[in-house]
């Protein structure tokens, strides 16, 4: 009674045939854009000598757009109210005293909400719940835990954060010991020179995974936009230029820090004796930062405001106010009785009039 034309081999099953004849136009646009942008820096620096433009004007402009854009987008969200109390409840409600309520997945205190948000934000818990559905013939659905995406997302975001923190040594004087310790931990168990940071490797693998899954899983490929590939490639460009500077084409870091410190005290001086990779690295970071408020990257502040996650499940206990509530036309009891009075009387139902 049931058959499928093609079975689902894992939820977004990979089959070589999936790659044939499929247009991934979005991907090619993004690759072209990244190549074009790289070309732009090379021409700008090598051909036209626009060092100050790329190391002073662009980073300042990018940072400005980032901060202003970020604030604008969040405030824009804040101007829309949350008219209804709509948490996505995922645990036992608090009702009868002898039934154990789940204060995290069905939070009934602010502390519960904080815990729920913290787990979602820091540990990506919804992705940890992920399961893939597998179709087996005939008419069998199998549910299998599927934590690869969770793993990739955790690896990417956390290593990104560590790398960001490590870079604080370019902006802070004196360098806090926590940053120094972080660097040491990140390079533990090795006597390599130059040091290879663990997070650099992790983020490359994670980015590779996040990128490849957009291409090989047909469903994910189908939903992916140019901008999805673009952000991944941009970050990949940043990481690769950074890793290359660390391992092969070295840059005088003291010069870089002197540039960064000068930028911070608003007396900018272009860096001296750095190689092209640094300009690419910096330009890509500037692009990422400027693009951030325009893009889906706003999921970072957005998750804090998500009304399905940041509300308590106490809507019968405490009244939620809708600020734009307005009176609506209803069908009153009087109108109702007016229409049905006779028949109500006939069967002996109590009535108000007559």
């Amino acid at each position, binding site marked *: 009674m049931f058959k499928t034309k093609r079975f689902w081999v894992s939820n977004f099953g990979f089959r070589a045939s999936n790659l044939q004849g499929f247009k991934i136009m*979005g991907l090619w646009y993004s690759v072209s854009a990244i190549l074009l942008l790289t070309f732009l820096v090379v021409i700008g620096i090598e051909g036209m000598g626009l060092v100050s433009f790329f190391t002073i004007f662009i980073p300042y402009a990018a940072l400005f757009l980032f901060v202003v854009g970020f604030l604008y987008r969040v405030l824009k969200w804040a101007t829309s109210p949350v008219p209804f109390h709509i948490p996505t409840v995922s645990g036992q409600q608090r009702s*009868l005293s002898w039934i154990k309520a789940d204060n995290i997945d069905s939070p009934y205190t602010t502390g519960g909400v904080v815990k729920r948000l913290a787990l979602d934000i820091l540990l990506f818990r919804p992705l940890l719940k992920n399961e893939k559905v597998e179709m087996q013939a005939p008419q069998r659905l199998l549910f299998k835990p599927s934590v690869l995406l969770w793993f990739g997302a955790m690896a990417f975001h956390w290593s990104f954060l560590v790398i960001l923190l490590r870079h604080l040594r370019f902006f802070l004087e004196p360098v806090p010991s926590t940053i120094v310790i972080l660097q040491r931990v990140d390079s533990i168990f090795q006597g390599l020179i130059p040091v290879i940071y663990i997070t650099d490797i992790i983020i490359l693998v994670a980015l590779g995974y996040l990128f490849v899954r957009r291409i090989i899983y047909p469903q*994910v490929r189908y939903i992916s936009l140019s901008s999805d590939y673009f952000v991944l490639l941009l970050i990949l460009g940043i990481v690769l230029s950074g890793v290359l500077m660390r391992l092969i084409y070295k840059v005088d870091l003291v010069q870089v820090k002197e540039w960064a410190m000068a930028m911070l005290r608003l007396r900018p001086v272009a860096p001296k004796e750095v190689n092209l990779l640094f300009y690419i690295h910096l330009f890509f970071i500037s692009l990422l930062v400027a693009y951030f408020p325009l893009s889906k990257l706003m999921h970072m502040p957005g998750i804090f405001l998500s009304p399905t996650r940041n509300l308590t499940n106490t809507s019968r206990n405490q009244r939620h106010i809708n600020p734009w509530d307005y009176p609506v036309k209803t069908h009153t009891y009087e109108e109702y009785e007016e229409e049905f009075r006779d028949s109500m009387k006939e069967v002996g*139902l109590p009535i108000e009039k007559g």
Partner: protein
Amino acid sequence: MADEPSKEKSLEIDYTIPKKSWMEPSTEFRKGTYCYPAASRHEKYLELPHPREWQPTDEDWKLPEDWREVILRGMEDRLNRYRSYRLFLDICVRCGACADKCHFFIGSGDPKNMPVLRAELLRSIYRKYFTLSGKVFGKLAGARELTEEVVKEWFSYFYQCTECRRCSVFCPYGIDTCEITMMARELLNLVGLNINWILEPAANCYRTGNHLGIPPHAFKSTVDFAVDELQEITGVKVEVPINRKGAEILFISPSADYFASPHWYTFLGYLLLFHEIGLDYTWSTYASEGGNFGLFHSAELAKRLNAKIYSEAKRLGVKWILGGECGHMWRVIHQYMDTFNGPADFLEEPVSPITGTRFDHARSTKMVHICEFTADLMMNNKLRLDPSRNRKWKVTYHDSCNTARGMGLFEEPRYILRNVCQEFYEMPENTIKEKTFCCGSGSGLGADENMETRLRGGFPRANAVRYVHEKFGVNLLTCICAIDRATLPPLLEYWVPGVEVAGVHELVGNALVLRGEKERTTNLRGEPLDSTISPSPSSGERAG
């Protein structure tokens, strides 16, 4: 209907991705997959915009002249009124975690039924007209023009979403496609695109107090009929007060409970329970509907229909309200009613008159779920129960989307079931509680003409039922949702013959030992307590 799926002509599920980009609108309306548009008389009765007669299969949908402006203005208005809309349109990263969480995607393979893509249908228009990146980068940033084709596509896919919120559980940001679908349906409503299976019940409810359009005298006679039936089965004559002023409690259930099958037996269960504990309560003919099909249309219509509950409670002078077994009714009551039509300061904080338990969690709304109420009775040993009267049933429990993800009512019904039946088996944990699968017919999609879509949407739920049916011999699916009770029987008949559907309080009614009752030889369905033959497939016909 020649195209209706049958055992001879099987449904195929094809997960192959189409060659053309999703940004090209799909506007195919194949018989069996879409709901009929609302008859204009219902739209007129409810005073909704642009009533007219049209068909999705028509080339010309007779959209109003300024339809584009109307939709865009409607969108802007809602972006400013709902943070959820703006936020959910902004922050999706298209990770795809939601894709295979949707019962319609699992059952149809159509990629536009992936929650992420369903939302993109709306998001792409938002980007084009309301975001800088969409205006600048256009298609590259996933923006597209609002055309008539897009509107047709919306009508197709936003009436293939049951607002069940399962995707929201798995989304890393809690993006709730229900919110997206609600917005899209409101926009469609602005240009007069509605479906009849939503607006006819809504118009009925507005006029007669209930979805089925039952006038007060018919309500009375249906109650009289129930009283007779119960006397036959139990030998006890129960009192059923209607529109009685001064009662302590107003009881409101979905109207299907007293008119459809197998809901009817749940209704009998309520009546027996209230009689046995001597509850001082009343039914209302004016507020004779707990459900709210307005919710599937617009927040405004939901509020208009919901207003009756508090206004009737006030008129009758009751202390608090008790609510029956219904899914989306409880979404409205738990998450919307107090905001819509509160504060209910003329009512008192609910206290069980039998056990003295104070229902603190309903302190503001003043409405208690019957499963909370009954579980409390059982915990306090106020009921004499004989679970052996349900011995023919091997029971499983289906969490309704709304009481699960809209409320968190997990343990109360399970506690009741363990007390009233002898064999209870859970379906696989991936398909219950917050991960429960929709019946595939919720949010106003339980029509007959879209049976193929319903069968596909119901497949994941049915599959889990089939698992316990084969493994443990489960022959009864219990639930606390009137739409489930109406729509699951035909779905189960197709996917898992041999499993019937019942409300939880039907089993309570069977097990409840009444004072002065005669020895029961049949259950509330009038069937012998023991079954040697497997139960016949129930008829879904009365459920409509």
